[in-house]
């Protein structure tokens, strides 16, 4: 068989890195490095988008790459850093499920999402189709991370990671969504992040901690 064109090789590489980062985030306990990982993920995402744009001559993808870079690599991590510094929450304690188990579940999820993505990839006409499975996997892993984390900020980072996975899916499967939508999504994410920032302070001043265990009072009593 002939070797893949360089662009596709790069994209596959980036996809692999993305998956790796997703796992890393799943395993990471320190919030600060979690933010780093998130930024890295954003960077990879932007790069891959750019490569796709280059190799498929899709100018509008450059814009979306730029958007991603700005938002996911600079603005959001910066905001998160400020929050962490302001609230000074550095350490994340043991999650609901211990790390190895989480990892195992993660593997299972990856296999599952590859399976699910397979038929779709068959249909895809894009050069990047094989990466759809990875995109879905990273979404799932982000979901798992949200479930397992007990603190507010990691949960939010998981949420943002999920957003990344989605964007990656969009680029890999369909060369990105129409620009309006991309912009809308970006806006939503940004606003959501800001609101969450406000939230953290409110929660903090109410419960003087960001531990989600304080947020378990509304429930059906026995």
């Amino acid at each position: 068989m002939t070797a893949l064109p360089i662009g596709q090789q790069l994209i596959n590489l980036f996809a692999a890195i993305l998956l790796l980062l997703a796992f890393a985030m799943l395993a990471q306990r320190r919030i600060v490095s979690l933010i780093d990982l998130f930024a890295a993920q954003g960077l990879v995402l932007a790069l891959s988008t750019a490569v796709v744009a280059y190799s498929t001559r899709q100018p509008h993808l450059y814009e979306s790459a730029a958007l991603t870079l700005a938002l996911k690599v600079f603005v959001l991590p910066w905001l998160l850093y400020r929050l962490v510094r302001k609230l000074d929450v550095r350490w994340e304690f043991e999650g609901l499920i211990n790390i190895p188990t989480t990892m195992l579940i993660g593997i299972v999820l990856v296999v599952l999402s590859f399976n699910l993505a397979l038929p779709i990839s068959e249909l895809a006409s894009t050069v990047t189709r094989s990466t759809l499975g990875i995109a879905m996997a990273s979404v799932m892993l982000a979901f798992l991370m949200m479930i397992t984390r007990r603190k507010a900020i990691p949960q939010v980072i998981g949420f943002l990671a999920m957003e990344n996975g989605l964007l990656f899916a969009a680029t890999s499967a369909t060369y990105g969504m129409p620009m309006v939508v991309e912009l809308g999504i970006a806006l939503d994410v940004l606003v959501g992040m800001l609101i969450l920032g406000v939230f953290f302070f409110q929660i903090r001043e109410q419960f003087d901690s960001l531990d989600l265990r304080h947020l378990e009072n509304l429930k059906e009593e026995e």
Partner: protein
Amino acid sequence: MPEIVFVLALPVLGAALLALIGHRSFAPSVNVAVSTGTFVAAAALTARVIEDGPLLVLGRQFLLDPFNVFLVALTAFVGMTTSLFSRPYMRIEEEHGRLTPGRLRLYHSMFQLFMFTMLLALTTNNVGILWVAMEAATLATVLLVSLYRTPASLEAAWKYFILCGVGIAQALFGTILLYFAAEKLLGAGGGALLWTELNAVRENLEPTVVSLAFVFLLVGYGTKVGLVPLHNWLPDAHAEGPTPVSAVLSGLLLNVALYAVVRCKVLVDGALPDAFAKDLMIGFGLLSVVVAALLLSRQKDIKRLFAYSSIEHMGIITFAFGIGGPIANFAGLLHMTVHSLTKSAIFFAVGHAVQKTGTQVMDDIRGLVTISPMVGWGLALGALAILGMPPFGVFASEFLILTTAMREQPWATPFLLAALGVAFAAVFSKVQPMVFGETTAMRLPVRPAMIPVFTHLSLVLMLGLWIPPFLADWYRNAAKLIG
């Protein structure tokens, strides 16, 4: 196309204006004025659509067909009445010292923003924009839910944000898959996300992809509809937010989310040979009805009670759309209308009741008819209406749904029978002593704003006895559209 522009622009401008002027004594009136203007514009828009059929405007970006235009009118109307109700309500809250002027500014502008997002979600023709608008609606309401800044309200808002955010993210994935399936037929670019385009080619959409997409979309938007087991945010958010917000959440937001689901269902039905989407919706609907009915019987907080009843009714509507066919769809649409009217009316009455008695715990609320006959009878009639007692309109739709189900899905009817019975027992046994019975509470000096309540209830009553022809045609066309 002036009307549509007005419908969408007025709330945005209103939001900006209210954010700028801050909380003055006339801010509530401005709020009312803007909402009224929106309703007038929406009414004009509706009239036009009734005259010259579906509209596709502003570069095909905005679609107005019978299905969504009646929801637009409904949304604008309930928004108006809610603003009317919230004027005295919020004033009393302020007097009670539960709200500061700053928060009231936030409340007013966010209320308008929320209206805008919902109207956008309803009118847009672009599935992607639909998603954006839904997400934006979530963000707008999160701040409204946490308005009191109490621990409970913060917790509720947090859960609301996270659960709906995640759900919405699934919906985005579904949208991407949809786009992915469409783009091979319609080519890349904006066209492939326009619902009208998708609908035109729905027979040729790739089945596997579409079914996957629908799963994600259903789970995503279903979270906002409040389908069991994705419903967990709903009771908290309703119980802890200010009552006007509970009213619009229950009366409008759930409808809009359901609208999104149904839009997607139409595409899937076209693409798939089997009744995949129908079965999913029937299953979710039935599950929601049963579980909600059971949980109704365990409630102690009055707003939680009616939140669960919203889940139950959303289940009924989902079930109806799942059955499909002209009658069931007609019934579903009618039920959407009467439910949002009745439920918001109930929340208005509940709000006043809570203000008068100073508690949300039902065991401490007694003898409302003696404290304030209007509130008492409003609550009693509203509860009876929502429980499906004729001659109110809720009964009309339940009549059609049940009788159709008896032939289409006979196996489901025992569950419905049991669930409706349990729900009746649960709600009525709790409402009756609140309305009647002895009380120790004093009569409060404030006059409740009962006009919205009784406007809604009389509309519901009318719909039970006589549905205006234009409305009926409207429902019929919409039902045909949904298929």
